[in-house]
């Protein structure tokens, strides 16, 4: 159990059987009265935000959350299969949790998976990944303008914008947080 005085930005709590994270927090107190903690909470399952005011005497449940470091192994239809390197346990996670970021996974990529009551609810990927360009139009020789881009595709079909000097077979670094081109790593 938490008490209201434990509340702070980023604290994860449980309310009506669902996990929430505190995104905003303000201490208020009227003279002679009890303190109130006005919070904004984000539902960790649905992403919805809500306002909630706690009183200093309130007790707040701790959510049953566990964060595990898992290595990406392979795709199995709509599931992503990860490996726990300590126990060799295979863990299957719905690909929908990652959205388009599933295309930026790489073999043995170390991901942090958050479980709520043993159910995976969130995956954090590393900041960047190296990927080979499978398809793009040839660049125009001599065109060095840096803000001109063209579409390119990875072998899994993921599309992104790259500078004109990138060619098929080049390995580039992609910023996973934004899903965009970061830099060229190796020429083909």
């Amino acid at each position, binding site marked *: 159990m938490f*008490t209201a*005085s434990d509340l702070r930005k980023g604290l994860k709590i449980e309310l009506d059987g669902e996990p929430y994270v505190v995104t905003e927090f*303000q*201490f*208020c*107190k*009227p*003279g*002679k*009265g*009890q*303190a*109130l903690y006005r919070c904004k909470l984000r539902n960790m399952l649905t992403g919805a935000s809500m306002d909630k*005011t706690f*009183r*200093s*005497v309130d007790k707040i449940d701790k959510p049953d959350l566990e964060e595990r470091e898992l290595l990406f192994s392979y795709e199995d239809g709509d599931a992503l299969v990860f490996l726990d390197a300590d126990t060799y346990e295979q863990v299957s996670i719905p690909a929908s949790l990652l959205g388009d970021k599933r295309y930026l996974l790489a073999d043995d990529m170390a991901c942090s998976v958050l479980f709520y009551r043993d159910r995976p609810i969130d995956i954090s990927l590393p900041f960047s990944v190296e990927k080979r360009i499978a398809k793009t139009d040839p660049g125009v020789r001599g065109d060095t303008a840096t803000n001109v881009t063209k579409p390119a595709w990875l072998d899994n079909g993921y599309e992104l914008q790259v500078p004109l000097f990138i060619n098929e077979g080049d390995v580039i670094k992609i910023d996973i947080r934004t899903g965009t081109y970061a830099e060229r790593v190796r020429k083909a």
Partner: protein
Amino acid sequence: MLSTLSLLRLRHTVWTATRSFLQDRGYVEVQTPVRISPPALEDFIDAEPCGDRFLRTSPEFHMKRLLAEGLPRLYQIGPCFRRGEFGPRHLPEFTMLEWYAAGTDYRALLAEAQEYLAWTAGRALGGEPSISRDGRAVDLKAPWEVVRVEEAFREYAGEDLARALEAGRFEEILISKIEPELGWGCPCALIDYPVEFAGFARVRPGPPPRAERWELYIAGIEIANACTELTDAAEQRRRMERSAALRARNGAPIYGVDEAFLQALEKGLPPAAGIAVGLDRLVMVLGGVEQIRDAVPE
């Protein structure tokens, strides 16, 4: 945002204006201990332990002991400490101004506090002391609006005070619906509190009974708390015991009963009124700074 130098000058002006106002009216400046044992027993205020004692949450009990010793008018400016209070308007260490006067009551003190605010704001801001906050003006030398707690609940929240108390929603309604509306145009005193929020105020018999207490609001910000002091030792002891029981139920630290203070009451505290002003909050309002931590130089 004020520069550190402007802030220091503003604080200096407020401090000197406060002292000259009170000295001119015959108040004696006192210093009472900062490390005390036990701290004043209040329902919802926690003290910071300091060795085998506590840092004071207010100088109230020691100052009333001096009142009982025969000092009829006294004041003190000094630091107070409240554990876990940190927010836009709260700091765990802050500066309190308190003054007490024998032979007076909360209504008379309200008149004197109006003069104090007009004088201090005039010294800090010049001839026509008014401030602007969130685009709205407050004339700090204007006569205060006086609103009873009961009226405020009806008018600003559309709530019945008795029902709000029953439902345990007093603080929530006060903070979310009432406080933001108080003290625009002119300062506002919220007056006559329900007995549950009497603190150490004398209670006027009902029906319904009301604590003779008011709080000053400027631009929605609580600045001061004042009351006719409770002088009845037996009633004071009952309140302390009730407060200790409530703290035990809430799982809050329990502090002992201040026997020296109760002895002073038994010996005889003259009828008196007292006021506590949060000087950092007053500086915050006068200096037009957003958060209390910007009113306190590091």
